[in-house]
């Protein structure tokens, strides 16, 4: 007995420590449960195919006998897939070895003996929690039609169709809506049942005593009440007495009211959920990007930055706390989410740990920007955060929070405005370069290894022929950051791979040099 317990514990520790086992389990979990896992959709497609083929075969089998090999396919292949899937879901639901280890650790802490019975009951309880869940019950019932002994079990083929809910997000969204409005829908259901009950009894009382040849019993009366209240009105049972007709008129009015009520509940619930559904879609779409920039705030500055980033081909997503602004960004054709950027949730969804490279805090409120910046930095310090601010005091505080770049639009514009006072022509040049409205632009060109500029002195490069004005060079330095800026380097200055040239010239001249690289 003691040996069995010992073996069990060592096995649990072995599983706990095994990297391979954990990797496999994580992979299976991602594949069948994790919506963010990119390959899950292939598994979902496969399952939908299996379900549809099985449903098709079972339906075909009603009128004509299907070939044996197809029957075998349904019996063995489909069933195996369903059984394996069921077992895998049960496996990844929880870790048995953790339960064993916890139990042993707790026992050793209190100097108690481990009871195998209580251990197994704990494990069984844990797995039962899965087996008794709604989805697992559907999964289990969907396996039943494979048993050919009982023909009635074939009805359970419908549960295979139910299983499809698992693999399609839009359908689960609908179920969520129904679940969300459970109270309202249940109230309406109770109310309808009550009306059907009353109307049914009334009709039975008025017409059940052989006045109406179609009403044989109370069930017929209830059936008539349901058909009438739902405004379907087959007409197979119709009232013939004036009293019966009055009851009919009353429940028709009630029915119309009830139906419009149900419709409005579902529609309003969908409207409430629209934001979440849209957010899910945006998160899913940007989830495919490896490097993402998050722009917080779609005001005047946000819009300009977005346009600039779009032109440069940067992948970004916009977050705005105002529904109106988020909708504006969305209608402008961008990935936009209405969310509170001062909370961690939205950044975690977007992948703050690995996907997000830059966060730009561009709302018009300095305090809000500082709040967002601190939020992001506290989640992942490596993310480059730029924040807008209009006050030097707040700028100092932002720098304390390790914000990488504090931008003050008033300062930038103020500096430019002052240039105009003495030098209007230089101002025009500056404006043209900075705002990139002309074809002549300032640009950077990184020197590629082995390119014609690698290891060449400045004097040997004919910039005149390249139609470029060389402003300066950033020498390559260790790490990702740029080195020192060398303005107007001398003719003897030697260029090396990794250096960055900063040039002014026609966009086509820059593109030409980049091509040569």
């Amino acid at each position, binding site marked *: 007995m003691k040996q069995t317990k010992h073996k069990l514990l060592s096995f649990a520790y072995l599983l706990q420590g095994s990297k391979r086992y954990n990797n496999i389990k994580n992979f299976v979990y991602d594949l069948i449960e994790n919506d963010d896992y990119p390959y899950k959709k292939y598994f979902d497609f496969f399952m939908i195919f299996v379900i549809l083929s099985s449903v098709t075969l079972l339906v075909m089998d009603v009128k004509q006998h299907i070939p044996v090999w197809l029957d075998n396919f349904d019996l063995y292949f489909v069933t195996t897939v369903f059984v394996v899937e069921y077992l895998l879901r049960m496996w990844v639901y929880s870790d048995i070895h953790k339960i064993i280890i916890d139990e042993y650790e707790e026992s050793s802490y209190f100097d108690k003996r481990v009871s195998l019975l209580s251990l197994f009951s704990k494990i069984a309880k844990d797995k039962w929690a899965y087996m008794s869940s709604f989805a697992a019950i559907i999964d289990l019932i969907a396996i039943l039609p494979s048993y050919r002994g009982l023909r009635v079990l074939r009805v359970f083929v419908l549960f295979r169709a139910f299983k499809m809910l698992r693999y399609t997000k839009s359908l689960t969204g609908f179920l969520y809506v129904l679940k969300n409005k459970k109270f309202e829908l249940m109230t309406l259901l109770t109310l309808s049942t009550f009306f059907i009950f009353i109307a049914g009894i009334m009709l039975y009382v008025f017409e059940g005593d052989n006045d109406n040849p179609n009403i044989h019993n109370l069930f017929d009366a209830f059936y008539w009440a349901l058909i009438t209240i739902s405004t379907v009105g087959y007409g197979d049972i119709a009232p013939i007495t004036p009293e019966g007709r009055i009851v009919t008129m009353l429940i028709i009015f009630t029915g119309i009211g009830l139906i419009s009520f149900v419709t409005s509940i579902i529609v309003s619930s969908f409207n409430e959920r629209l934001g979440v559904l849209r957010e899910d879609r945006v998160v899913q779409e940007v989830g495919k990007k490896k490097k993402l920039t998050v722009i917080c705030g779609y005001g005047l500055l946000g819009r300009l*930055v977005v346009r600039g980033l779009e032109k440069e081909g940067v992948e970004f997503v916009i977050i705005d706390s105002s529904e109106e602004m988020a909708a504006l960004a969305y209608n402008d054709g961008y990935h936009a989410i209405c969310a509170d950027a001062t909370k961690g949730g939205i950044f975690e969804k977007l992948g703050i740990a690995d996907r997000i490279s830059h966060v730009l805090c561009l709302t018009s409120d300095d305090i809000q920007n500082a709040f967002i910046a601190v939020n992001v930095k506290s989640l992942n310090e490596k993310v480059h955060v730029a924040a807008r601010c209009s006050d030097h005091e707040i700028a100092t505080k932002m720098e304390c929070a390790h914000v990488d770049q504090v931008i003050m639009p008033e300062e930038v514009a103020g500096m430019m405005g002052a240039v105009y006072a003495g030098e209007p022509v230089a101002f025009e040049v500056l404006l043209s*370069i900075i705002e990139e409205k002309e074809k002549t632009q300032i640009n950077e060109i990184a020197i590629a290894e082995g390119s014609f500029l690698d290891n060449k002195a400045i004097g040997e490069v004919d910039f005149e022929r390249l139609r470029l004005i060389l402003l300066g060079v950033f020498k390559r330095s260790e790490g990702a950051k740029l080195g020192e800026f060398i303005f107007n380097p001398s003719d003897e200055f030697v260029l090396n791979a990794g250096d960055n040239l900063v040039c002014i010239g*026609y966009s086509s001249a820059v593109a030409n040099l980049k091509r040569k690289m």
Partner: protein
Amino acid sequence: MKKLQDIVLFGYGSFGRQLYKNLRSRGHNVKVVVGMDDYVESESDTAVDITHINIKRNDDILALNINAAESIFYCAMNKTANNLFLVLTLKSLYPEANVIANSNSNETTRKLKYAGATSVIDLYEATSRRIVNVLTKPAVSMALDEIVYKQNDLKMLELELQENTFLEGKYVSEIQFRQMGIILIAIIDKELGYELVFTDHRINHKLDAGDILVIVAKKKDINKFQEMLVSKSSV
């Protein structure tokens, strides 16, 4: 040395304050004017002389006794409508006035230009470019910081060529600007009209008196260059 123009700055909000600071650091004489109801944050470190007027009244503006020909007007009011109204007022009072206005969108820029503003500074345009550059062209962004935004040795400025300088009658390609520590970026060549042209070697300009050169250089090289221009012209 060029005579610095006087500045009349309308508005003393966050943009106005930044403008004031930069203009003063460049040595300009700045007169600050604000509307009657405008709230002005106290500036303890600088003794700024602020005049309150009713911007709707022409008499109040005329009472400022501005020499419009020698001054530049900056309209930096917080409200776009006030700025626009101010540009209209100034242009109607002084048709030749040099009026610079601040804007916050293309839409406002269009209206201000139509109203007669000589130049318009978009509050967000340069900032947005700067943000985009940090992400996509970090070297450009840092180079512009060195040249434009940082208070350091490197400057961008314009020089109008006087009569009889050593540059007169010479072609741009003949002058070794780079060896003098100077980078010539753009030129207004009077022979080619008054349009600003970047000197990216597509046209070899002939330099004459009255041409304006836009250069980037270190302070000491600028001084040396200016001395060369003066010494030659005095010969």
